[in-house]
Structure formats: C-alpha cells, structure tokens
C-alpha cells in the first residue's frame, strides 16, 4: 500500500477514534441512550480488513460494537450519529440505536445484540451470494467470547460443508464482557479452534494496520476465489469497558498501560512519520480538522435532526400492503 493511501487510512482511523470518544461524551450528556459499546483500541481490525475488501460491494455484518464497521463500509457518519441520537435521519430511522446500525445500501447488514447471533446470518448471506453467482464475500466481525456460543460451531460446520464465501474475523480483545478469556475459554488461541472444521485460519497482531491488511488480503483472496470460508483472528484490546455501564475495574492498570503502548493509530502515525510521509504538525492539523468536522457537521446534524414521529411506532413491524397476505388479491 502506498503512503498516500496509508495517510488516508490514518485519517479514517483517527476519525473513528474521535467519533467514538465523542459518542462517550454524548452519552454522558444523555444525548445517547441505551447501551453503548465503543471501539477505541481496536481500529486496525476493521480498517485493516475492510481496506483489503471492497466496502459497499462485499457484505459486512457484526455485533453491537458496530459504528465503525458501518462507517468504513460506507455509512455516512452524520447518519450514524443521528441514529445514536435516535433521530428520523439516522441510518435505522431512530428505531435501531447503537447496537442496531444498518446501512443496506452500502451492504452493511447490521449490528446485532445477541452474542454470536450473526455467525449463521453471515453464512446465510454467503449462501445468498452463492445463489446469485456474484464475486462478493460476506465478512463477519465478532469478538472472541462469541466463539463460546453454539452458533460459532454450527456456522463454521455449515460454511465448510457448503463451501460458503464467508470470512469470519475474530476481534480477540481478551475479555467477554468482564470475564478474562482464560477464565471462560478452554483454548485461548481462537484460530486453533477452527481446525476442527477443516477451515483455514490465521492469527495476527490486531494493533498493526499493515499486518492486519496483509493477513486480510490473503484471507479475502482465499474466500473470493471460491475456496470457501476462512477464519482470521486479530489480537486486540478495547480501551474502555465492554459498554458504558461497565466500570472496567476487572483489568489491571499495568495491562492497560502495556496495550496503550501499542495503540493502532499511533503505531500507524509513527510509521508514516518515520518514513517521511507525514510530520507531527500535519498529524496535529489532521486531528484538529477531524474534531471540527465531528462537532460542526456530525454532532450538529444529529442535534438538529427531527425525532421520528411517534405516530409511526407501529410501522415496520410487518410488510406494508403485501398482497400475499390476502392470497394474492390486490
């Protein structure tokens, strides 16, 4: 990847970081309700993988920690923030919220709130791709703890026997809500668990954009060429608790400090500075411009957007005017 592209990715990753930090503030300000799961610390996973994919063409599906995957898939950050603010202009018209970001026009197939729920949905999307005969793939991002659900095993098995074009990306942040992986999971290296289904897999440093990008290229090439599913494990860390209601008291400060030295944004920044493609001043200017953009455009749009009309609370439960409900009679 060229340095100019890496600079663009750096800006996108920094935007993602600032977007999520602003969500935190908006939650404290009570502009965002419900549950809020933030992504800082894990940015290289979504950006490394989706930079190697074709966002808007390939299908992406994930869990409730979904804002950044949606944005990288092509969703307008203004409309994602408007969704968090529960506005009619939100990507899901204010009906979804933080955990249910959808942007189907960009083939972002949603954020789902049941841990492990998207595993079979991703396999099903891949089945749909297979039936349509296109060259898309489905990329499913989930955390390590989701692998202890039955859907993990059921879906890997089906993806393999039916040779489905699905890439499972495991963002291993070492904690399932507040329980450390070694206390909940018999096998720590998640990529090894996949061998039982005869699916190729790899483990990579999820903090290093270049390494993720490279591993994802290999994985995506495999899936797109028709060779069936692939499982990519990315070792990463979330800076905040599982959600905003999480005190985050269960992690040692030394552990948090250790991971903060491997910040994905800073690592990519320093690499570009070392290669002479970027100066620290340029980076600071970039950051200032991002903060301004988030405040002046994203937050402003969300704040000024109308809420959905309460009179429409019963819309979208069932299809509207479906003739087959009446046996095909118009």
């Amino acid at each position, binding site marked *: 990847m060229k340095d100019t592209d890496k600079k663009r990715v750096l800006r996108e990753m920094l935007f993602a970081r600032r977007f999520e930090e602003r969500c935190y503030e908006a939650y404290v300000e009570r502009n965002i309700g419900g549950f809020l799961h933030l992504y800082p610390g894990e940015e290289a996973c979504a950006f490394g993988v989706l930079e190697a994919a074709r966002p808007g063409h390939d299908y992406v*599906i994930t869990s409730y920690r979904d804002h950044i995957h949606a944005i990288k898939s092509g969703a307008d950050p203004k409309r994602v923030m408007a969704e968090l603010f529960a506005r009619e202009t*939100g*990507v*899901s*018209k*204010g*009906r*979804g919220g933080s955990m*249910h970001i*959808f*942007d*189907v*026009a960009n083939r972002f*197939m*949603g954020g*789902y*709130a*049941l841990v492990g*729920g998207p*595993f*079979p*949905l*991703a*396999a*099903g*999307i*891949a*089945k*749909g*791709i*297979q*039936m*349509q005969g296109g060259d898309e793939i489905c990329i499913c991002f989930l955390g390590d703890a989701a692998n202890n659900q*039955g*859907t993990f095993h*059921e*879906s890997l*098995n*089906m993806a393999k*026997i*039916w040779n489905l074009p699905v890439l499972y990306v495991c963002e291993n942040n070492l904690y399932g809500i507040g329980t450390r992986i070694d206390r909940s999971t018999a096998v720590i290296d998640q990529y090894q668990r996949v061998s039982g289904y005869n699916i190729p897999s790899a483990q990579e440093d999820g903090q290093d954009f270049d390494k993720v990008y490279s591993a994802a290229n290999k994985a995506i090439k495999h899936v797109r060429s028709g060779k069936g599913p692939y499982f990519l494990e990315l070792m990463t860390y979330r800076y905040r608790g599982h959600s905003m209601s999480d005190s985050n008291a269960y992690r040692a400060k030394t552990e948090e400090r250790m991971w903060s030295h491997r910040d994905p944004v800073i690592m990519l920044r320093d690499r570009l500075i070392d290669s002479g493609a970027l100066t620290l001043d340029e980076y600071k200017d970039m950051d200032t411009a991002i903060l301004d953009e988030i405040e002046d455009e994203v937050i402003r749009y969300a704040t000024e957007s109308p809420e959905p009309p309460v009179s429409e609370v019963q*819309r*979208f*439960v*069932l*299809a509207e005017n*479906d003739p*087959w*409900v*009446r*046996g*095909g*009679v118009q």
Partner: protein
Amino acid sequence: MANIMMWEAIMRAHDEEMANDPMVIAMGEDIGVVGGTYKATTGLYDKYGEQRVMDTPISENGYTGLGIGASFLGVRPIIEIMSVNFAWLAMDQIFNTAAKVRYMSGGQLQAPVVIRSPGGTAHQLGSQHSARMEKVFMGVAGLRVVTPSNSRQAYGLLKSAVRCNDPVFINEHELMYNMRGEVPEDEYFHPLEGSEVAREGRDVTLFGYNISVHWCLKAAELLSQYHGIEAEVVDLFALSPLDREGIRNSVSKTHRAVIVEEAEPAVGVGAEVMAIINEECFFELDAAPVRVSALNVPIPYNHAMEKAALPDENDVVEAVRTMFGV
C-alpha cells in the same frame, strides 16, 4: 378438485413455488435425499438439486439463522424444523432476528422466511416430542403464524407464505399429514389473515385451529344429533394476527363461545380469543366463554395418561352441555 393427503399438498406447494422462483429453496433435517420425515419434500432433491434442497446438519438455530441471513439477499427459504420441540433451539434466530430485523433496521431489511414445523402430540412420543408451541410464536410481534386444518389450507397457506415478505411460521401436525382433503386443481393462494366458518350454526361458536377444528366438527355433529344444539365451527387458520372481525361476527350471531386448543391453557389461544371477545363483543354474550384445553402437564408416555392429558370431541360436547345446562 384433487383429493390428496396433507403431505402431498405441502409437497405440491413446494414444487410449484420452487419451479416459479429459482430463489426459493428448501432446508431442513433429512428433507433432501430422504424426502422428509413426513414426506413433505419428496422428490424435490432429485428435481432441484442439493443447492436448493439442503439437507442440514442437526443444528436448528444455526440453519434457521442461515436461512434468515440468505433471505436478506432475496432468497426465499422454506425451512422445515422436524418437530416443533426442536424449534425451541431456533428461537434466538426466529425471535431475535427474523421477527425484529425489519423494525430495528428502519425498514431496510426483511426476512421472508417460511418456517414449517409439526406441532401437536402424536402417539406416545413422550414429553420432549409432544410440545404445542403456537402460543409462543403468536406472542411475538413481527412474525406471522398460520396453522392448516386441511390439505387445501396446507397447500395454499404455504404458497402465500413463500411469496409474503414477512417471516411466517406454519404450525402443522404430526397426526394430520396423512389426512385427506380436497385441493383445487388450479393454483391457489390462501390468505394469511382471517378465519373460515367450517360449519354454520346459530347456538354456540366453537373456535378451533389445526387438529382441534376436527374435534369441533365432530362435537358439532354430536350436539346436533343428541342435544338439538346447532354449533358454528370457526377455523382460526391464522393465529397471528387473529381475526378479530371474524371472532366478533360469529359471537355476535351465536352469543356463546367455546375455544378448543390442544395446548395447555395458560397464555394460549383460548385466553387470547377470550380477551378479543371481551374487547370486541362482550355485551353480545349470553354465557361466559369457556376454553377446552390440555391439562397443564408435560405429555406422558403411557397411552391412557396421554389421552387423559389431551382434549377431544367429547370434552367439547361436555363443555357445551355444561354451558347450556343439558
């Protein structure tokens, strides 16, 4: 009209819909090479191939979720869950995804899946193969629930369900697959909402669905023959949404209601129909509505005990006689 068994009617609906639209697929345990535990998918594997007639692993939540995911892209899966008892395992995907995805995506996604499964009790299948779960499915917004009482409905409901853009659960019955009935020779789509008057009457309305329609019809004959009571039988083939207008119309005519269900009484069809009668036409009533239900027990293996746990036409007759004091 063709006089065919219910499994043949279901098979014909599969075949016609798969021939009509290449995106219609069938999925389930043993539905392909074997042709289905109840033969409802016989011949489809040879005709449409393994890409469209998928023998799934025994992973109910997994393959149901896979079907739902495929439906996001326009695939129209007909998912057979071999026994409704196994559908408990797929509740996560049915309720958390299929029933909610249209709503929580603000109308961007839909899950037009059909999930068919035999509910009801058969002969001595024991507690874990005798569940009656229609009450569970009909209690969740975003899902349609229909249940055929005859071959015509089984055929026409499945065809409409495949084309409808909502997720539809079709509650069938293990004891009814070999039941014969008339089905139109021409293609026929049954409405997914409403009810049917299976027998006209003036004195009392017997509400039934699926197998209990047949108990109601037998009871109506006995009541007419021995007690001079002319019962109307209303077939609630749509359990969600229930036909409020049909319920109101019949009760407004007969002024008495008995609801007959194979399931335990709590939170069931009987309770729901009574609530609708209360809301729609309470002042039309000449007597308090009554429900005839199963006992509130897991279904026993012993045949005599199993029979005692379940209602039949005699229980319906007794309920009506008590209501009339005859």
